[in-house]
């Protein structure tokens, strides 16, 4: 085990790789979700639903399809893993009134995803006051075994957080590409944003240095067909 990560050798399912955090092994899904097999628990972070309409209120008329796009991808990963518990790790809604702008169809879609499982909305800085009429439980953080789920990372052991929207760039011989990624050093992890319009912050930003002290960490980049584990020092 180097750098707290095991590089995926999974041949039959290339869409995932394994990430170990505080001795718990998670599956890093190509969609940007994290799955805890033993608990049948699925985590997604930073959905930023209704970001498009949030801009529209300020005159920037972004296509109003981001919520639909995000929920469709969420539906796909849920049906792939069939979790018992889903945690939305904060900033699920782009602003405080975003849930009021949800279309009836999107509301139904959320209800459909929630049915038959536990659903936990963790509050984030964009959505500190979560609505009560959307189903699921609202919490500031959730601890299960050695793992704590909260929105803003503190760097604590066993913490899985979001908020920072990590992305990483890799380059070679004049070519380069940038992707969303999980950032993890075996003790803690920061999840990529799941939302269709959610941008990213480079893992070389000082914000990450605060969370991952000294030994460096690994970026699990979401490629086209598989997740790639690459040392953060190799990215920028």
């Amino acid at each position, binding site marked *: 085990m180097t750098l707290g990560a095991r590089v995926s050798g999974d041949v039959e399912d290339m869409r995932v790789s394994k990430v170990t955090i505080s001795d718990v092994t998670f599956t890093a899904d190509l969609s940007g979700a994290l799955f805890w097999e033993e608990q049948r628990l699925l985590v997604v972070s930073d959905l930023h639903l209704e970001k498009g309409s949030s801009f529209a209120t300020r005159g*920037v008329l972004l*296509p109003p399809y*981001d919520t639909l796009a995000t929920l469709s991808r969420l539906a796909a990963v849920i049906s792939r893993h069939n979790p018992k518990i889903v945690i939305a790790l904060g900033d699920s809604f782009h602003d405080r009134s975003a849930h009021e702008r949800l279309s009836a169809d999107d509301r139904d879609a959320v209800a459909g995803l929630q049915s038959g499982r536990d659903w936990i909305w963790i509050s984030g800085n964009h959505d500190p006051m979560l609505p009560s009429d959307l189903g699921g439980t609202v919490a500031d953080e959730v601890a299960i075994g050695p793992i704590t789920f909260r929105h803003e990372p503190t760097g604590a052991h066993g913490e899985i957080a979001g908020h920072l929207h990590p992305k990483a760039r890799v380059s070679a*011989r004049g070519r380069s590409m940038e992707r969303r990624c999980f950032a993890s050093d075996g003790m803690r992890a920061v999840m990529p944003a799941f939302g*269709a319009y*959610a941008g990213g912050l480079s893992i070389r930003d000082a914000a990450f240095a605060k969370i991952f002290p000294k030994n460096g960490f690994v970026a699990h980049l979401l490629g*086209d067909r598989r997740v790639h584990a690459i040392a953060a020092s*190799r990215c*920028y």
Partner: protein
Amino acid sequence: MRRAHHLSGHSLRLVGTLHFAHPARPRHPSTNLPPRLTCDAVPPRILKIPAEPAALLPDRFQQWFAARGWSPREHQLALLEKAREDRSALLIAPTGAGKTLAGFLPTLVELSSAPATPAKSVVSTGRAVQRSGGLHTLYISPLKALAVDIARNLERPVAEMGLPIKIETRTGDTPVSRRQRQRRYPPDILLTTPEQLALLLSSDDAPFLFSSLERIVLDELHALVTSKRGDLLSLGLARLWRLAPQMRAIGLSATVAEPESLARFLVPQPKDSAESADIVVAGGAAPPLVEMLDTRERLPWAGHSARHALPEIYQLIKANKTTLVFVNTRSQAEMLFQNLWSMNDDNLAIALHHGSLDVAQRRKVEDAMSAGRLRGVVCTSSLDLGVDWGDVDLVVNIGAPKGSSRLMQRIGRANHRLDEASRAVLVPANRFEVLECRVAIDAIAENAQDTPPLRIGALDVLAQHVLGCACGEPFLSDELYAEVRTAAPYADLSRQDFDDVVDFVASGGYALKTYERFARIKQDKEGRWRVANPKVRQSYRMNVGTIVEDDMLKVRLVRSRGGGQGKASGSTGVIARGGRLLGEIEEAFIEGLSPGDTFVFSGEVVRYETLVEDQVYVSRAHDKDPKVPSYMGGKFPLSTYLAERVRRLLDDGRAWSGLPEQVRDWLSLQRDVSRVPAVRELLVESFPRANKHYIVCYPFEGRLAHQTLGMLLTRRLERARARPLGFVANEYAVAIWALGDMSFMIRDGRIDLNALFDPDMLGDDLEAWLAESALMKRTFRNCAIISGLIARRHTGEEKSRRQVLFSTDLVYDVLRKHQADHVLLRAARADAATGLLDLRRLGDMLTRIQGRITHRELDHVSPLAVPVMLEIGRESVYGEAGDELLAEAADELVKEAMG
């Protein structure tokens, strides 16, 4: 008046393109090329010898000319006559023909005879004159510096003749107070840019300002019409025709391939037919003397640096008074400048000029140039247009000429005396470029033009214009649609497209109608559209224009942290912040670098240290050669016309005698071991090399089309299980390498070349690729900005560029999936046809070569393939990379972990 004293004989030369003169010389011998390619073949109603100068030119003007020993040129009189006939006109003239004066003469004559208002006693001190007649003439230039210089030069004849004419400029630099005054008390002549015109038109008082307009002069029209700025200008013209139906246009242009279509730009297009301005062609330019550098050195197989010819280039600079050395890219300019100085034992004053240098620094070079203090300037297309400064007696063009018209315009920068030939030397940097230079010289001798055809107006530009219209007087859709169609690029605009654009401007144009309440423009009871609130107007004003700059990063020189191991460290803890500012560089280039990589910038080899926000930190490197060649390819691909001529040259063995011996030998060897492609044929070679299998094809369609072709072929070969690994494209060829034995697969029928190159690759394969293409995303982003979907600048807040609020790439992905026929995607697709993906050209090529593919199976690489093969690993493929790149990086981690 920098050069007012440069009198030589009876031909005075002024700064700018004011140029007076003496009897026209006969046009140089005509040609045997197809008529549409030559300016000599322009249709008949060109140049009637005007009746009598006396009849056209008032006494005051005649005396003024005579006092200087000049006589007006034929085309200058011709434009006066067109004005008298109340006709719009397109003047086609080479640089130095006195184009600008010709364009302004009708205005000056008309204003000189206008009755002075009795109440005022008018004093002719040029600038300080007050008139009450309103704006008479609008002059539009692609460069604000040019507008300013032309204004300065116009003041002179106006002052000398004592004409009561007030001349002003209006650019981004004009102070607010003067702008306001200009709107209340317009000058007689206003010199400005297309963007400023759009801004003026979007104001409430546009009818007041423009209703008196008699004429508009459009300078460097050939350059303006090839871009979206031309679309914007055409829409502005359409608006002016409605506000000032009496207005006549004069277009000033270099020689173009299709003067007729350019002439349509200048007059309102009637419904369902076409109307053109009259065309006036100035004769008299001596044909240029162009030769190819006859190098004694060995011609390189590949590369773009022309390093082999450096001593010879240096000697040329030394032997001439002032030499302009044109190269195709910023990085080539950097490299060449650096190399020339390293051998500059005579301490010749050689300067550098390119678009990424600081404006102040560029201006300094230009001033030194016009003061005659420079012996040489290494420059890029940054000097293709603009003010004529200095006594340039030689133009050296390094590398591929790309197109004959472009080259002719560059050569025209030398020696602006019409009666003397411009002199130019072409320096090919590799063997293929020798072929390109050869055919370019032939094309120039025939005066064959290859400027692109007139654009079809872009929908994103139309969206910007529609918003601008709504900022002014409210409009009715029916009326605006009719108005827009009078602009030549939009003459064929469908009502559906127009309505979609209006819908887009209003509420985004989405099938899902959720944004009605956020609409930016709204209809009143009569159906007139107006802006919904003042913020929309403000945002329009701040974002007008169609030039989307590449994202640039500031480059600062700091001390190295040493080591140069290429380990990224993210924070700049060890690097002192600050550092000397060297200039700006494309973000896309920096993204392809790893820390520790070296490249040439600002005349020296530097090491990339780190990137913090929008600052790139570099340190001085001691390497002689940079690790990463920063040749990102020129902006313009090889023209279709020159490509065709190169193919013809290859096909005609007898014509090879005009080529250097080394090149003849190279081609002969190719004929012996493989084949030299015929004009219409596509040659495909396959051969093994170092455990990989290669195919190389030679379409000669330019780098952009070849990159697209490379992408699509790789996809198809992957499907055929040839296991392709990569490809490289240059202006002439594409090489693809694979693990699979492609020679065997072709023999075996598992790869059918006719199917591989079938035009149907522009169907599903293209669609699949566009979904993820970085080039397409960049194209989309430009459309999103120009159309006003997203703002470059926000009101009140100057956001740092790195604080990106959302990524247009993500918007592209979502929109593509959920509303594939959205008007912005249509706009982006139209751009892709001619822009970065050059799809139209690729399509034409695939159709041309159908059934004409010749395959040669070889044991090893052929002579013709060597240049493109040498570029493997040296040429960067822009932006496209996938899992393999990530996997490669991940493998290194495995090695690190295991090793």
